[in-house]
């Protein structure tokens, strides 16, 4: 088995117009900047992007927004310092936005990867974000029914990988990357370094079974 891909362009070549794509990262850490740039060059449009943030300045997801490749954003925190392209597209009514509480976003992604058909969470009970959703009271506490969130592709950033697709991370850069790996039909990890030797199984964070392609992109932006 060899999941290594030679270059970023090949890694994203199969992404189609209208695809639903998870993109790892939080703030500026753990974002697959190389894969996002390759996706921009590739040209796919009408994308639904699932991520924590909606990009800042002229980097990452903000570039995809600037170049009008995104039709819908599903995220917890779209507005952040420098998120000018998100704000511009949102104010002009050019993109659809689904705001999801961060823990519910992570758990919906986890549910998709774990084969769970839906779950009850106390988060957002009684608020605007629970409107129109099924609710239940269990032992006197209110819960909201949330559904799994699947994707066609996941674009991930890890520190090291091997040819089996095993991944390990650095610092707070793992964030959404491991859980997203499990929830997409085809997960591509951009890694700082592909190890020739197998990664130490004790140190693997994301087992390779969740990863379909690994590509080296050494630049840590």
């Amino acid at each position: 088995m060899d999941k290594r891909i030679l270059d970023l362009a090949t890694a994203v070549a199969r992404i189609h117009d209208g695809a639903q794509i998870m993109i790892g990262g939080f703030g500026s850490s753990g974002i697959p900047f190389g894969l996002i740039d390759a996706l921009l060059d590739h040209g796919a449009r009408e994308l639904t992007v699932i991520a924590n943030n909606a990009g800042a300045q002229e980097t990452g997801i903000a570039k995809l927004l600037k170049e009008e490749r995104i039709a819908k954003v599903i995220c917890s925190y779209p507005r952040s310092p420098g998120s000018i392209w998100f704000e511009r597209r949102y104010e002009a009514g050019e993109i659809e936005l689904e705001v999801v509480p961060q823990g519910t976003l992570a758990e919906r992604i986890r549910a998709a990867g774990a084969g769970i058909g839906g779950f009850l969470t106390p988060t957002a009970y009684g608020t605007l974000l629970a409107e129109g959703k099924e609710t239940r009271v269990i032992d006197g506490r209110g819960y909201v029914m949330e559904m799994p969130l699947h994707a066609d592709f996941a674009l991930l950033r890890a520190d090291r990988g091997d040819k089996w697709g095993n991944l390990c991370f650095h610092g707070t850069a793992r964030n959404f990357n491991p859980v997203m790996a499990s929830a997409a039909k085809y997960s591509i990890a951009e890694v700082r370094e592909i190890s020739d030797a197998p990664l130490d199984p004790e140190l693997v964070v994301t087992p390779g079974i969740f990863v379909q392609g690994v590509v080296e992109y050494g630049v840590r932006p």
Partner: protein
Amino acid sequence: MKSLSDSELAARVAQDIPDGSYVNLGIGKPTHVSGFVPEGREVIYHSENGIIGVGPTPAEGEEDVELIDASKRYITAAPGAAYFEHADSFAMMRGGHIDIAVLGAYQVAENGDIANWATLDDKFPPAVGGAMDLVVGVPTILVMMKHVNRDGSPKLLRSCSYPLTGLQVVSRVYTDLAVLDVTPDGFRLIELMPGNTLDEVQAVTEATIHT
């Protein structure tokens, strides 16, 4: 009236963080609380982007771009720290493992409702982040905020007018004018910040302050 500065307020909140607690500090002003916790107390800070054991700001030139907190500031890992992914991070928050969260707010109501994620302005995109998960999962929710808005309108209300983050979840509110507990009877005065009288503070508070 005399208003506490942001760092004086952070120092006041820090007095109430007990030794040995696991604490999540909301983005913005609450992050400053960690700098004022009295010496001799070990407090372990959780940041929802995947670290428990947030350490001090790194020295200039020592920053690691992949080691940040939820406010996107560079951090270090304290001794005993651990990294984890997002589903685990929110299990800590929602699952009741974090003891205390300190949050900012637009509005707090006398029954403990909090509004801190969206305004009534349609043009302003809402951003909820982890606030709704924190308020349902963390047993002690401390709010740290200005007592009134810039235009002088009250933030401590009989009921919130902005969309709620959580229902009946706030334990205590620290403002630049007073410290108030949320009780079954409403806000109860714990202390006035130096230089203020109850009458003055009540005059800029919509809800009744009980003593």
